[in-house]
């Protein structure tokens, strides 16, 4: 299918899809757009950091339906991306990324995920599968997502995401590019064979990224301007710097200055906003807010502190509120800056390295030891691991044993981020209470040292 035919088909399909999406929320299209416009009235500079983030994401979602609350509606070339696909190339080529997992989280926040989960399960998606994916699948089946122009997928971390991408390519009859990412580079040593493997892996991924650019051009007609790619990567580097500075403040300021539940909403290292100009300002504003809070920090400096692993439950629940009444969540894994500044003179290899060295994509023993080396004495860990996430849930026992040996208390909560059907607050509360009691009895060392990127 030619790019022009795709544009023509998508234009019509997205009208229907936006109508379906609005109807699911109980609104008609005009009411939804009016509500969106109201939210866009306040000047950007007057928004808080989280409001800026919200506006950026809302704007992107509406634009993917060819709607624009701040300007005239226009067609946008949309690339569906799997969660760990970098976004710099798409922005540099004028393409809007769309992440189904993020959409799923948004539906759960609005209490709208349940119906989508049931639709997916009714169509053959196993109840054991990741609920982010199933919610996305339900939304595909109900035709409430904007038709993609292309689909961009990586193979790392999440197996069902890669399979789901193939499913969507078939459903929408749109071309898919799959980027294969080798595993376990963190475990390589300094011998000649390992050095060769590292070089092979980086070259393999970097050359696939270049192939992806060719694929995008072939399928959309859009060409990459290398100078634009440099400027997008500079945006990423600038945003990264502000994010790291903010992370240091949340981790090392005593008493604690931020609500971890609010911090979890940034889920920075998963976001599709890397490379935009706006995200620089989002993280800069976050830093300024945190700095102001640090300057006037009040509270109990002896309160127990924890680091939060994985994501939060997005559906309405009391878990985080209950925990935060008793301890401070001072760092979150999803905001961890794990990558070095991207080298603008060698962008493909820089992006390849970032993907290959994702700490979630390395042997559990190595990943856990890296965390042990960075943890502050006295701090504990709460891991909210969905059972449907094979990747993290299966790490729990090994992590627990290693952290225990290192004297770091850890609580694993078997929950789900999206699916509230198995939620049992009372069972969780019993376990949380017991864990917090143990944590409170631990002595805490306030003699903190500064690292540059948090946990």
């Amino acid at each position, binding site marked *: 299918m030619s790019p022009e035919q795709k544009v023509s088909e998508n234009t019509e399909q997205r009208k229907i899809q936006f109508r379906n999406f609005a109807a699911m929320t109980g609104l008609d299209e005009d009411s939804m757009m009016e509500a969106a416009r109201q939210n866009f009235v306040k000047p950007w500079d007057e928004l808080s950091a989280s409001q800026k983030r919200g506006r950026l994401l809302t704007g992107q979602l509406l634009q993917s339906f060819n709607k624009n609350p701040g300007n005239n509606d226009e067609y946008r070339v949309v690339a569906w991306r799997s969660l760990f696909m970098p976004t710099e190339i798409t922005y540099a080529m004028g393409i809007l990324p769309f992440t189904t997992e993020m959409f799923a989280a948004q539906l759960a926040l609005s209490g709208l995920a349940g119906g989508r989960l049931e639709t997916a399960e009714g169509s*053959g998606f196993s109840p054991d599968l990741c609920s982010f994916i199933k919610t996305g699948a339900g939304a595909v089946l109900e035709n409430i997502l904007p038709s993609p122009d292309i689909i961009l997928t990586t193979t790392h971390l999440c197996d069902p995401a890669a399979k789901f991408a193939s499913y969507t390519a078939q459903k929408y009859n749109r071309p898919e590019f799959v980027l294969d990412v080798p595993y376990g580079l963190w475990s390589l040593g300094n011998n000649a064979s390992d050095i060769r493997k590292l070089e092979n892996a980086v070259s393999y991924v970097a050359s696939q990224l270049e192939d992806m650019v060719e694929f995008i051009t072939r399928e959309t007609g859009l060409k990459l301007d290398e100078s634009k790619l440099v400027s997008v990567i500079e945006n990423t580097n600038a945003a990264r710097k502000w994010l790291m500075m903010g992370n240091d403040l949340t981790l090392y300021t005593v008493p604690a200055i931020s609500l971890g539940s609010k911090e979890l909403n940034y889920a920075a290292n998963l976001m599709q906003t890397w490379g935009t100009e706006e995200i620089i300002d989002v993280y800069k504003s976050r830093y300024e807010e945190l700095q102001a809070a640090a300057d006037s920090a009040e509270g109990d400096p002896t309160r127990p502190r924890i680091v939060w692993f994985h994501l939060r439950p997005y559906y309405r629940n009391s878990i985080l509120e209950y925990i935060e009444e008793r301890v401070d969540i001072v760092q979150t894994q999803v905001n961890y800056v794990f990558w070095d500044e991207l080298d603008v003179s060698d962008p493909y290899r820089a992006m390849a390295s970032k993907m290959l060295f994702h700490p979630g994509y390395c042997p559990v023993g190595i990943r856990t030891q890296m965390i042990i080396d960075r943890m502050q004495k006295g701090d504990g860990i709460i891991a909210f691991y969905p059972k449907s996430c094979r990747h993290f849930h299966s790490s729990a026992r090994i992590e627990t044993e290693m952290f225990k040996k290192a004297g770091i208390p850890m609580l694993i909560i078997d929950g789900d981020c999206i699916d509230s059907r198995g939620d049992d607050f009372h069972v969780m509360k019993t376990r949380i209470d017991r864990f917090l009691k143990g944590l409170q009895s631990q002595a805490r060392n306030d003699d903190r040292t500064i690292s540059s990127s948090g946990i």
Partner: protein
Amino acid sequence: MNKPKIGWFCTYTPVEIIEAAGLEPYGVRVNSGKAHEDVYLGDAMCSYVRSCLGGALSGDYDFLDGVVIAHSCECMRRFYDGWMFKQEDIKPDCLHFLDVPRIYTEKSIDFFAAEIERLKEKLEERYGEISPGALSEAVARSAYTSKLLSQLNESRKSDAPFVTGAQIQKLMIQSMTTPRDQFNSELEAILGNKTAVTDHSRKPRIMVYGGPASSSLIDAIEDSGGIVVLEHMCNGLRQIKADVGQDENPCKYLARSYLAKPPCPRMVGEHSIFGMSQIQKMVSEYRVAGIIFFSIKFCANSQAFWPMFKDTLAGDVPVKMLEGDVSPDVNVREVQSFVKKLARRTERHVTGTEG
């Protein structure tokens, strides 16, 4: 003299390298470990992997000199982590973790070839140099096995296949642990004595699609009145390497022939789509009356592949999804019900009363 045995767990492991090193590859079967080991990996992990780690921890593989674990999927990845975490309590060493690409392109072939070369180097460090001649011979002998197995499968296209699915299962299981030359001789003998013992022409012809599964699944299908004509499974078609011609570099040849074989659900992209068209072709060539899609519970690749699988084949052939584990416990009633339904259709077709 007994050769040291090296365990492997996934059909994407190039056992030819192990053979060329003068070692004996030993495919760890679904029934060789402890079915419900969930202490270290949690209870949301596929039962094959749990069984394998359970077997390692309880000493079931102490006769092995080492193992090679392939990065097939997220469960196998964690299996490697579990093995390394408990290595002090497990006798055989994990000799190598083999990265296996999930796409089939010229670049992924090159990358996998380099990974196979690394495996070769690891084995050489421990067992001595692998000569080019030994490697060529191992590759040739393995290609011959694939050729014989393909001939055997080809013969199953006939109305009255001279082997049943149950017999094929026995052979496939045997192939995982029997020395190559001995197994090739046995295959030659079987192919040289093709006599149909029973007329299966009125039985519904069934394909099984899945991962590693207990042979009791095949038994249940055939005990219910069906005849299994093809196993698109780890203990089936996926043990047959693709015929990809020649390559001067044996590691590259192996990389190509392994990545090109009928794809496991772990594969994505164009090769996965090609795999679906292969299945459609097989349905036609083998005159398959129905497919049982056997998904191991918690195998995310298989579970996430099912919706696409059934949608693609809708209208071509009846497909039944069965979920289970690697234990011999099979939901026999569901199997019987599906086979009976297919038997009625087959009877109508044979007697000309269809429609």
